[in-house]
């Protein structure tokens, strides 16, 4: 490992590391626009110029690998002057329309201006005019006046989505990012260019003019849209009302995890967050009429005591490990057969990159708990024929396959099946509870609670616990998801020793085959 110094601080860095990353290890932040660790190096913004002892010319840190004995200065007078120069050039023709720009508050130009420039514009000549507010795809708007021409978005469509819709056209200061003739930015990963854009040139149609980013609260969580389990951040507005349709979730965007999704996520996953607020089942129902949670639990307990036929409990592979485990436990107590209802959830199409055909986020987790997968369809038809009783715990994904009368339905979302069920209980969605999901690679990851459950909704394990109490069973695992998860380790060696804490932000592999 080459030994170098950054601003006099000695450190050893793996060979091949560039100076931006090396400086970060030394606690020095080298400003940059065009460099992005997930893309090729283009070296065009010239913001990351640093001084290397013995070299009369400043070098771009992004394209300079560490070398033995290198002495790097990231804050020398020469470097600072060069940075201020680049900032002046970048802001020269920039419209400075921050008051109406979605990016204000999380804009590289704003941040770097405060850190490295803070000078008034010396431009006395007219600014360049370019095209603004261009609709370039289903999710993205383009403003070429705000653009700093870093080419990140272009490199993304060339190197990651490999769809090549974007290019930089023209030359010199007339240059503009734009669509390649005859295309629109319509690939399955288009939303990533908005995250990549260091300024407000590319904005998200879904988020445009909705909120200032500083009003939002970030939660590091995962996407439960398919079995990949991409790591993401969910932004919610804590000031929004806790009621159906209030739109508490504002946006989601990927969070780096080298083992899962790198820096990216698909549009389908990104734009799933409105489901947190839309179409929810928020209050319990008994025979289609609103009921208090207590009465609903009582009613369900009554019918569970007087079954008259074998009971099957369908569990969605979209539920968290904690929810599945609690209902697995309860079904044993009830003498019912618990079925992981994977066969009722329609499969999608995989793309060989992030999107998986297996759309359920926790099928692997369900199997790990020893849940049987067979018999879900049979159980539905038995119940319809009156030969069996059926209770379903759904993450909003089983309803289309449920026909006929249900003894009970626990679901996140409202559907005709809710009124058809004797008792319907509202479930908290993945964003409203702490839970663990095991992705297709066997990586156990945390989905963290970002907001309080809507209305009277509760996690499925909480309903299981209340129901057990109502029926006089001894208390099950615990009344907290982290405690449930830790207790599960005793029954399932694959999870032994794991806790919400040890899973951390990047997840941990479960010990398979044990």
């Amino acid at each position, binding site marked *: 490992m080459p030994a170098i110094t950054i601003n006099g601080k000695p450190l050893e860095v793996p060979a091949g590391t560039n100076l931006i990353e090396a400086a970060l290890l030394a606690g020095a932040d080298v400003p940059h626009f065009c460099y992005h660790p997930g893309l090729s*190096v*283009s*070296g*065009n*913004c*010239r*913001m990351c*110029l640093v001084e290397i002892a013995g070299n009369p*010319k*400043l070098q*771009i840190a992004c*394209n300079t690998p560490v070398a033995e004995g290198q002495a790097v200065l990231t804050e020398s007078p020469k470097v600072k*002057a*060069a940075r*201020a*120069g*680049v900032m*002046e*050039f*970048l802001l*020269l*023709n920039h419209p400075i329309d921050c008051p109406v720009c979605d990016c204000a508050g999380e804009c590289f130009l704003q941040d770097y201006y405060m850190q490295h420039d803070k000078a008034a514009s*010396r*431009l*006395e*000549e*007219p600014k*360049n*005019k370019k095209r603004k507010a261009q609709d370039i795809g289903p999710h993205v708007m383009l403003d070429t006046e705000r653009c*700093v*021409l870093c080419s990140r978005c272009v490199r993304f469509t060339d190197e990651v989505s490999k769809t090549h819709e974007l290019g*930089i056209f*023209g*030359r*010199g*200061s*007339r*240059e503009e990012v734009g669509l390649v003739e005859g295309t629109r930015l319509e690939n399955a990963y288009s939303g990533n260019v908005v995250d990549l854009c260091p300024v407000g040139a590319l904005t998200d149609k879904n988020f445009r003019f909705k909120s200032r980013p500083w009003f939002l609260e970030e939660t590091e969580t995962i996407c439960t849209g398919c079995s990949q389990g991409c790591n993401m951040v969910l932004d919610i507005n804590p000031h929004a009302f806790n009621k159906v349709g209030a739109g508490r979730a504002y946006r989601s965007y990927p969070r780096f995890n080298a083992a899962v999704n790198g820096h990216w996520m698909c549009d389908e996953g990104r734009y799933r967050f409105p489901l947190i607020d839309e179409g929810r089942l928020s209050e319990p129902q008994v025979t289609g009429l609103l009921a208090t949670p207590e009465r609903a639990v009582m009613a369900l307990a009554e019918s569970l005591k007087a079954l008259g036929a074998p009971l099957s409990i369908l569990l969605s592979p979209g539920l968290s490990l904690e929810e599945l485990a609690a209902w697995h436990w309860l079904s044993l107590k009830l003498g019912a057969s618990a079925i992981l209802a994977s066969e009722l959830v329609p499969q999608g199409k995989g793309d060989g990159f992030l999107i998986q055909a297996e759309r359920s986020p926790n099928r692997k987790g369900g199997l790990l708990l020893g849940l049987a997968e067979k018999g879900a369809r049979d159980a539905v038809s038995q119940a319809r024929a009156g030969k069996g009783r059926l209770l379903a715990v759904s993450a909003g994904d089983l309803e289309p396959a449920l026909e006929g009368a249900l003894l009970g339905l626990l679901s996140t979302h409202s559907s005709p099946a809710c009124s058809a069920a004797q008792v319907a209980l509202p479930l908290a969605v993945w964003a409203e509870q702490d839970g663990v999901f095991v992705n297709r690679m066997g990586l156990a990851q945390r989905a963290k609670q970002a907001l309080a459950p809507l209305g009277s909704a509760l996690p499925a394990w909480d309903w299981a616990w209340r129901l057990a109490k109502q029926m006089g069973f001894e208390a099950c695992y615990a009344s907290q998801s982290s405690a449930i998860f830790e207790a599960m380790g005793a029954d399932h060696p694959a999870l032994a020793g794991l806790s919400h804490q040890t899973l951390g932000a990047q997840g941990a592999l479960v010990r398979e085959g044990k």
Partner: protein
Amino acid sequence: MSPLLLTRNFGDAQALSLEGYEAKGGYQALRKALAMDPAALVEEVKRAGLRGRGGAGFSTGTKWGFLPKEDGLPRYLVVNADEGEPGTFKDRPLMEQDPHQLLEGIIIASFALRASRAYVYIRGEFRQSIARMDEAIRQARAKGYLGAKVMGSAFSLEVSTHPGAGAYICGEETALLESLEGHKGQPRLKPPFPAQRGLFGRPTIINNVETLCCVPHIVGMGAEAWAALGVEKNGGTKMYCVSGQVAKPGVFELWHGTTLRALIQEQAGGPLPGRRIKAVIPGGSSSPVLTADEIDVRMDFDSLMKAGSMLGSAAVIVMDDSTSLVRALHNLTAFYSHESCGQCTPCREGTAWLHKILTKIVNGQGAIADLDRMNSICEAMVGKTICVLADACAFPVQSFTRKFRPEFEEYIKSGKRWSLTGWREESPAPGFGGGH
């Protein structure tokens, strides 16, 4: 009088045909070269001290030595014939008047480099050059000087021309490679250098037309004899282009190291009658300008460097006392801001900003403070970009405004506009927007 090597066939239509060229001793050097060891050829060029004629003046032999060992996969020779530096017109006559001389140089160089594919990237506007090179390639191929087994040796070579599409930046060698590959012409980050990873990701040597034209002469007469034609470290003969306000503008081949004054006075016939030389750009429009008092400098790479300018493409542009240097500089920034590829921030924004300020000044709306503002903009541009186009725009701005500051101040203070017909009093039309 100077020995004529590169231009010896100029004006002789016979030299356009392979037979005519051979009758004047052509392709003898190739015969000699093919009998040599390729490594010895590289050494020969190194010993001759041949320095790249494209502008940088880097040792050609050393550059050739950068090629990695052969690995059985392709490696390329690319000829930079995208002659676009304002004031430069030496490569075009070399291709039009004596195409076989260049071709012989290409074949020898390719043999020395063990490259079996060479591309001649010719500025698209040079239709005649492209046609003459294509014809020379056809003739040489028919004669067995190209194709499989060149002149019966084990060496094979194919050469083809490729027209540029009108961008100055494609004269920068890595932008040229991008263009040759079919991409937008923009300089690449270095490292990796083309000798490691060049055309189509393979080791590539890029040489200027004049550079390669020197090669047959070095091989033919021997490195020492060739080097002795010039001065120390600047061997051989050199093509000089003289344009602007002189009696006899043209391209002249002289021993390397003649003085600028001799070049202008003796070769180009001196200034026009009744005029005085005011300023001279010695090495293409990118090189810092010299005043009339500074033209006793020797026209070689090192002497001009010492004089604070550069030999560049040896394109001498003479401006006399009838020229407004304010407008001349405005013209230069128009060129560079138009030709900036737009990749690097300082160049994209800086060249255009400088041009905006100069547009304001020539329209009679400038302020003295604009001169200092321009110089600080130049400081933020020089040495901060991938290629040297930003420097090429900044150098003239810095040197014009420093060496001729009184003229700029006078122009600004007058508040008038100067046009080809003299000073104008009326207020100018708005000069901004859509200029390109």
